[in-house]
């Protein structure tokens, strides 16, 4: 818990934000999942495709540029991905309207926060709805509609275990317990020493725990406990023993 606390303190620390790159404009592009999955798995130089931006200045004034994205072969023929995906996508450009979107980053293993830029253009990467795309959607649908559990007819006998009243391991355990069960009464002095040593570490003990520590029979132990301890009947430390005030080594105020 202490280690966690330090990590937490580190994360909670107020950090200066690097805003040197805040003026930079960036595009925010919404990419379909099937495409991004391939991008993430990609090996090699990291080229995923080409972006072709066509601007036409007609007499009507500047129009929205036509942006077409074409995937590379590396993305298209990626091993391990079954359904084929459309190669070309169109970017539908939408403004940021009145949203104020800012990109910030945090390097791995560091707490430094950097503002990376401001979104000046949003775009949605739409596939061209051709046969290939329809095929893809169809396959996706089939996969999604497949039930998670299916009934299978068993061909061979399945190994089964019959219930047992007692396992071998349990018997061993019981035997061991029985040996230690016999607790002999030690000298009162010695038991008290053990008890005081235990109460130095913690303030409250359960009788069961004390039996485990001192290995004394319960009636004898209780007899001694009555002498040097008080039994808590109330909520915060219910059913627990603590030392009588005169034996305590810590201050009274702390016990409350």
């Amino acid at each position, binding site marked *: 818990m202490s280690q966690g606390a330090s990590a937490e303190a580190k994360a909670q620390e107020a950090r200066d934000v690097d805003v040197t790159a805040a003026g930079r404009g960036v595009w925010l592009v919404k990419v379909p999942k099937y495409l991004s999955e391939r991008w993430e798995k990609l090996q090699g130089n990291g080229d995923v495709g080409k972006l072709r931006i066509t601007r036409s200045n007609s007499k009507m004034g500047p129009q929205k540029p036509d942006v077409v994205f074409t995937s590379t072969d590396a993305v298209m023929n990626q091993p391990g991905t079954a359904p084929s995906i459309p190669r070309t996508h169109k970017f539908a450009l939408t403004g940021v309207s009145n949203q104020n979107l800012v990109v910030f980053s945090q390097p791995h293993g560091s707490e430094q926060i950097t503002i990376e830029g401001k979104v000046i*253009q949003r775009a949605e990467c739409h596939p061209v709805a051709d046969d290939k795309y329809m095929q893809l959607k169809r396959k996706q649908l089939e996969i999604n509609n497949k039930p998670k559990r299916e009934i299978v007819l068993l061909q061979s006998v399945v190994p089964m275990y019959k219930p047992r009243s007692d396992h071998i391991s349990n018997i061993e355990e019981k035997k061991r317990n029985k040996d230690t069960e016999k607790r002999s009464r030690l000298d009162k002095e010695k038991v008290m020493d053990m008890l005081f040593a235990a109460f130095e570490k913690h303030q409250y003990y359960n009788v069961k725990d004390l039996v485990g520590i001192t290995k004394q029979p319960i009636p004898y132990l209780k007899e001694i406990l009555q002498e040097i301890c008080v039994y808590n009947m109330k909520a915060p430390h219910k059913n627990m023993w603590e030392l009588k005030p005169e034996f305590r080594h810590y201050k009274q105020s*702390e016990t409350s």
Partner: protein
Amino acid sequence: MAAKPGPSGMVPVGPSAAASNTTTQEYTVRVPLVSDRKKRVAMMRLPNRPPIDFSKSTDLSIKMERENNFKEYKTANDIDMMPKFGAGSEFGRDQKEEARRKKYGIILKKYNPDEQPWHLKIGSGKQAKKFRGVREGTISENTSYYIFTQCADGAFEAIPVEEWYNFTPMIRYKYLNAEEAEEEFSRRDKTLNYFNIMLKKRVKNEDKDTELDEEEKAAKSKASKSGKKRREFMLTDMDDWANISDDDEDIDEEDEDGDEKPRDDDKKGGKGKKGKANAKGKAKVKNSKQNSDDEAIEESDDGDYDDKEVDYMSDSSSSGLSGADEKNKKYEEKGVAEEDGLRNILNSEDEEDEEENKEEEDNEDEEKKDEKPAKEKKTGSESSSSSSGSDSDIDKDEKITSALLMQKEKGDKKKPNEKGDAGSSSTNTTDSKSVKRKGDGDAPPSKKSKRDHSSYSGGSSSDGITEDAIRRYLQRKPMTTKDLLQKFRSKKLNLTKEQMTHAIAQLLKRINPERTMINKKLYLSLKA
């Protein structure tokens, strides 16, 4: 960004750009390998208001931190902060807790400080703007977002956005919760007569201070020279308290006067202030709850208010609790519309109505035989007694028209005669209320009406419709012509309806009252 053509990454495509006005540029898009990514990119959605532009606020300090919810986490998961060793610790506590959790199948979620909301602070000190950024979960469920940035070589680099945070300004002022808002809303539109409130307060204080005044005078004459400086001697409230304890002992002023000398010596040389302070102390004991204004105790001389500041030292004036008390008290005061005075005006109308009704009944008994046709006209469709039948008709109209008229209606309902009536059953619920209202107003109306009966009926029945009568009615409250007609009809004049309307119309022309439209009805009124 796309506006400036990249110098090297761009590959102009000749043939496709054949059309005269189109330019085509081609860029490579690169996605950095997962292993090469050095940073996590997240998006922050900032509020539009106040506008935030980090590029323009470089001179301000901008800080971000994670919210610390560790304590909340601990309390929510019942993780106690008990010491692990020594005093207060329990043996084997953690293991027992763990065993208990396992038994009930509780799986604890670990507290991750990196999953807490962000706090963004722009600026420093009091001008700092604070925002809280909460992670948005569902936005990237079915799609992924990428940031496209242009590299030095002109190619686009696509970096996935891993998290979205929605930043909202942190509200740091106190606002009303739903219940409080409701309460305040109910006080809306209530016009308080502050003059009345203050007057009441003053009267209350004076009641308590009459005996004190005399006592004070005596003290004043004794220590008249230092009179104005007395207050300044008081340094703390403690002085007052000391006096309070003294005051409990002495009961009348003679006692006090006798005692004064020796006690003056006791009090660290606070000479002369004694008398007044005593008075003050006593006042405080008596109206401690009631937030006494100390000014009310003494007789106002010129310059007495000069040393007013000292008053603020006493806790009766501005301490938190009594302040709240005061506030409540203020709100408990009646609105102007509920005040006794105005209510009396409104109710007097009711009384008059009652008188009329009563009178009407009496008349009815006498004139039952000769007034048969008239009576039949009045009762109309309802089988109840004539008066109540006609009354309830009006009531229904009035109920809709205005709150002012409602008052009258309530008064009408007081008649015992009407209790069993089918016609009035709908309004019977207001009965008890109106009785109560009546009760705190004047003497029982039945007596009064009997008293007034002879003179009233004699005058009105003989005179008939007069200009004075109409003026009187209109000055009291706005009325429709129908109401007016009803008033006179209930007076049992020996006139037909046509005659009455004609007479009223003539008189109204002469009076020329103010006309106002309320709820599509013409109301006539006169300024008193």
